[in-house]
């Protein structure tokens, strides 16, 4: 089996230094776990983050050189269609670019391949490739996709192979001219990130008055009950949990 892992020019959220995107490194580990022949693919300028991926279980990376204003999907799709692998793995979100997580879907659409999202484990199955998918709150689904397919990897996947300096030193980067297709620029203003308040402690049900109380009294306020009877304490705890959307079995 041949697997291609898409590598992006990741940036560290704190230092902004080139840093591989963790889910992409986890994707390498998943592909290696399948016993696949793994290669990396990057569209854009050669980047230090891509070079670092060589230290985490990747022996060779192909860099498709395209311009800043070029469409990475077009370049990747052209390269993959020319020499299709069985599996294309990508992170479920990037870290350092637009970070929309849309690229694997556009790529799958362009190639006409199926896509399975948020993989935490991969295994060969009789009909194709079994993908264990992470769903909200720790739930897991098992999908079977017919290769060739695109699979995105979820952060809950097993940890990446640790970085080894000497491996990165030995790894090969091959540069090719990528297919150039201009990207339709989107009308958006980019500005430094501003932390915004989160909506906190909003109850999911009850009367408006209760919800108001929930929004203003419970949330972050530090309500202290001193020596309540254990039964009352239990009721308060349960009400608090329900307001957060947990333990709803009782109202069903």
């Amino acid at each position, binding site marked *: 089996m041949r697997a291609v892992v898409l590598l992006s020019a990741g940036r*560290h959220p*704190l*230092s902004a*230094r080139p*840093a591989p995107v963790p889910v992409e490194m986890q994707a390498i580990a998943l592909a290696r776990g399948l016993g696949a022949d793994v290669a990396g693919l990057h569209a854009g300028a050669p980047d230090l983050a891509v070079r*670092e991926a060589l*230290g*985490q279980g990747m022996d060779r990376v192909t860099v498709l050189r395209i311009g800043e204003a070029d469409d990475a999907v077009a370049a990747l799709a052209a390269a993959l269609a020319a020499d299709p692998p069985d599996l294309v793995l990508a992170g479920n979100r990037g870290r350092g670019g637009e970070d929309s997580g849309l690229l694997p879907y556009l790529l799958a659409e362009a190639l006409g391949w199926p896509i399975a999202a948020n993989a935490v484990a991969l295994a060969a199955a009789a009909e194709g490739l079994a993908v264990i998918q992470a769903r909200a709150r720790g739930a897991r689904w098992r999908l079977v996709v017919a290769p060739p397919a695109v699979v995105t990897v979820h952060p809950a996947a097993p*940890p990446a*192979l*640790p*970085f*080894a*300096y*000497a*491996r990165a030193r030995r790894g090969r980067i091959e540069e090719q001219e990528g297919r150039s297709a201009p990207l339709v620029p989107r009308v958006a203003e980019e500005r430094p990130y501003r932390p915004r308040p989160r909506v906190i402690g909003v109850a999911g049900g009850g009367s408006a008055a209760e919800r108001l109380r929930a929004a203003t009294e419970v949330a972050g306020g530090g309500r202290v009950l001193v020596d309540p009877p254990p039964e009352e304490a239990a009721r308060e705890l349960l009400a608090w949990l329900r307001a957060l959307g947990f333990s709803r079995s009782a109202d069903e």
Partner: protein
Amino acid sequence: MGPAGAFVLLAWILLASVLVAGARLVLRWRRGRAARVDWWAGLVALPRRYLVDVHGVVARDPRAARMHALTAGGLLGSSGLLLLGVVPALRAGVVYWVLVATSFAVALAGSAMVARRRRPVRPAHLSAGGFLWLPVWVFLYAAGGLAGAGAIVLTASPGLGFAAVVLAAVGGAGLVSGLLTGPIRHALAGAVHLVAHPRPGRFAGRRESALLPLDLEAARLGVAVAEDFAWNRLVGFDACIQCGRCELACPAFAAGQRLNPKKLIQDLAAASLPPGARPAYEGSPHPGAPPPPLAAGPIVGAVLHPDTLWACTTCRACVAACPMFIEHVDAVVDLRRHASLEEGALPEKAAAVLEAIRHTDEPEGNPLAARGDFAAGLELPVLGAGESTDVLLWLGAGAFDLRYGRSLRALVTLLRRAGVAFAVLGAEERDCGDLARRLGDEVEFARLARANIAALNARRFARIVTADPHALHVLRNEYPDFGGCYTVVHHSALLESLLAEGRLTPERRLAGRIVYHDPCYLARYNGETGAPRRLLDRIAPERVEMARHGLSAMCCGGGGGAPVSDVEAVRRIPDLRMAQAREVGAQTLAVACPGCTAMLEGVPEPRPPVRDLAELVLEAVGEG
């Protein structure tokens, strides 16, 4: 030829065997990497290293010292005398044979002491196997020699003399047969080891403790197989006599982790032999480790369990306890360097820490600009490039720890109180690299060292003060290899001098029994055990010592990346250390390191409170 001639002949035959065995050992060692050795200086220093340095360590156990002096002295003296007997005039005299008989008698007494060491019950830290035969061979050799020399002196029948020669020959053969893999090889290897020691700075009372830089351009980084060690390191492994002092000192072994430093050295010595030729080891194993497979290949995997590598706290207790000056920690770090740089075979959390260091210059991924946040309201002056101050305060990784921030606040308050002109580096202080280096990531260490040195060299200051002994060690002893030479002072020394000069005046004396726990990187790595004690004696009337203190203090378990390696254990090292403090009735445990603070404060209550020296001084001086 009479018995006298036969004796001399035996001695020469034994010498020839020793030389043959020595040559074979040399061939084995030569498979290691090349090393620069100053032979002349080593040879000149040998007597002193042997008689002063080695004996100084051996003599910590006076009985062992007597045993060794009698056995080694007797064997070397008698054999040397017999070799001189090749001069016919000499072996014709009675005085000569009286001397020979005397020296054999000394060896005989030694053999009795060697035998007594494992009787009636063999202590767990001593090995069995070949070691049980050692006194037998010495006894036969010495008894035969004594009888033979006696027979010659008393002019008894030649038959008796020849019988004695045969007895001595049997003993001598037994000893010589152990020269390649048996216990007695420590004698040959030990002599070469002392001459060609990889760290000559360990002798004559000096304590060279800095890790040696790694050539990052080398084709293979670190040590995978025995041949990757420098040849004189291989000699060091063969110099081990399995006395088990390292085993007694090792905190990881005490905690039941898969590390017995004595077995580690034996494993490394065995790794240079083909699996079939490896000598049996009959001492304590690595706790909980499966019996070693007899496999060839990389040391980690074929000989050692990876946990053995990561259990080490780099506390140097084994190194300090070793009478042969073997470098356990260097070996561990060499193996870790390969695991880290070549294989990426790291414990999960250790890998995460190194990744954070790679991308943020900080092991926990904290923003460097937030290092001063603990001092909210204290307004730390930041030293800009080109500016100057008296004391540059190196905050270290502990500044990001909620608990340790309290200790640093106390230190900053005291510096202000004493009128010390100080400043911090602010966002220009990167992690010092201690953790990266102990985990084997020399690449990141070198990068951090260079970045920090560039920041430091752009500023002027008289000295660096830090409360973190790990940072102190790295800045003081390991940055010079990268071009950064600074005067580095631990906060215990600075506070002590401020108290001594009267710049800080204790308002009251602290009540209760205080016990001081020495940080490894301050005591064993840097020999600083006096200032913290003098400081405490100024503010606390009731200071007591734990049994293991000063240079032989037990580690808190927090060094060498052990907390992030999180190796399986039966007990926790800090719990063991806290029990030792409780044994002497500690009501307060004084510490002087952010690592020790975190580890010892992690011991479940009830336990004495753990307080940094700065906090204690501040309490004595008064908050106001």
